[in-house]
């Protein structure tokens, strides 16, 4: 501004005007700061939303009576109003919840219907979830048998183990169809291997001998079943 000052009387007049404007702006700014300090910004959006939603139609639409320092009130409200306005615009454009009596819609089409494509997608999703569930349950059962908490024998009794194995075999039957249809080959291969273990366990009504237990444990270790379960589970959970 000092460089600009030496360039003639016109320039000096301009500078004086700019300086006056800056002083006035500074006055307004300090007023705004004072006003802003008096506002509870955390509570304000909620307060405005409450009042906006509770507004009684016709009254709310009336223009408010002119009040002194009304412009200041607008300034004070600006951040919240801007947020509210933006929210309303975006909300109105994108989504709204409206209270509707169900009767007004029902009766028009009360029958169930879904396209074959949708049902395929739903079944694919079901296959993904149920395979994760199957793998988790299998993992728990095998862990109980081979890595029991106390370091001794399996926690579950032989009869219970046999029953659980049968339950998992039943689940697997349904999964077979889905895993085949939806080309989840990696998951199917692993589930098939686990199924073979459960076929063995489902037939054992008495406690397994130490030798049998060791044979199955070695098989699980050798084929890295636990590692495979974790990997396939992660893939399915992340939707890969």
């Amino acid at each position, binding site marked *: 501004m000092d460089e600009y000052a030496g360039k003639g009387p016109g320039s000096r007049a301009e500078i004086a005007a700019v300086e006056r404007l800056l002083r006035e702006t500074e006055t307004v700014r300090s007023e705004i700061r004072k006003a802003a300090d008096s506002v509870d910004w955390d509570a304000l959006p909620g307060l405005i939303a409450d009042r906006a939603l509770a507004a009684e139609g016709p009254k709310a639409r009336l223009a408010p009576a002119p009040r002194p320092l009304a412009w200041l009130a607008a300034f004070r409200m600006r951040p919240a109003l801007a947020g509210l306005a933006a929210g309303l615009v975006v909300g109105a454009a994108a989504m709204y*919840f*409206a209270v509707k009596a169900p009767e007004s819609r029902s009766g028009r089409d009360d029958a*169930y219907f879904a396209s074959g494509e949708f049902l395929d997608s739903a079944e694919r*999703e079901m296959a993904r979830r149920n395979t994760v569930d199957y793998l988790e349950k299998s993992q728990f059962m095998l862990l109980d048998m081979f890595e029991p908490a106390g370091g001794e024998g399996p926690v579950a009794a032989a009869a219970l183990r046999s029953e659980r194995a049968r339950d998992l075999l039943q689940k697997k039957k*349904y999964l077979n169809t889905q895993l085949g249809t939806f080309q989840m080959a990696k998951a199917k291969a692993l589930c098939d291997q686990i199924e073979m273990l459960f076929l063995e366990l489902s037939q054992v009504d008495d406690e397994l001998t130490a030798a049998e237990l060791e044979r199955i444990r070695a*098989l699980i270790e050798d084929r890295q079943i636990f590692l495979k379960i974790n990997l396939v589970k992660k893939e399915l959970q992340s*939707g890969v």
Partner: protein
Amino acid sequence: MRKTVLIACLVLVLGLGQAAAVRAGVQAAADESLFREAKLLVFDKDWRAALAKIDELIDRFPTSPLAGQALFYKGECLSGLGGRERDALRAYRSYIRLDDAKPSLVEESEGSIVDLAFDLYEGGDDSALREIESRLDHANKVIRYYAAYKLSLVSDKKQAAKAAPVLSRIVETEKDPELLDRARIALLRVSPESLKSAEERQPRSGSRARMLRIRIREGGSKEPGFSLNIPFALADLALGAMDEDDKAAIRKKGYDIAKIMSELAKSKESILRIAGNDGSIIEIWID
């Protein structure tokens, strides 16, 4: 002299008995070992090698207690090999007929028969469908349910609809959520009206089953291009089944669809409307 002969006979009898016991022990070890090897090959899906071991076991040790169980694994191998479905069916049927067949393996064999019959039917052998239909009134509900589920998937919708009574029964009486969802989806495929009646009859839903409705309209169109009316119980699955691109688009707009659904479910009478930039409108509501 007589005493000597008697002692000699006794020694001979004892010796023969001992030899027989040793022979039986050796056989037991041999058939067990063969069976173990076969099962290991089945575990690794080496069907041909496993089948060879099983056939060897049945041929060499026909009286072995393992020979019966071997029939089940023979069915597994033949089924795994592909192209030998009828041989596999025979093996499973033979196993089921055994007096000492294990219940768990019988259930598995029945399930495999249903699967094989399904494949044969879809491959053009119409008579194979009888194997599935005949199991719709099986005494064991595990087998009955599976037959109905599998029948619902056959391409001939008229045949598939025969599964509806059993599937409806599952919806009305079963508690297992996995089984229920499967039955609901199967009924939506073959007989949506049966699902509606079953949902309304079952005690869980009261007099009127709640329904999730979705409509998607293209920009400027009054008629929806996509419509869906399904039991609310399947809502979670329906959302999970949404196309990944659609889910991403909704997330990008800042919506947590799971939260919105939970709100919709609570309010019972709200409607969610999402308008796309292209003028398309998605409406979701529950009533």
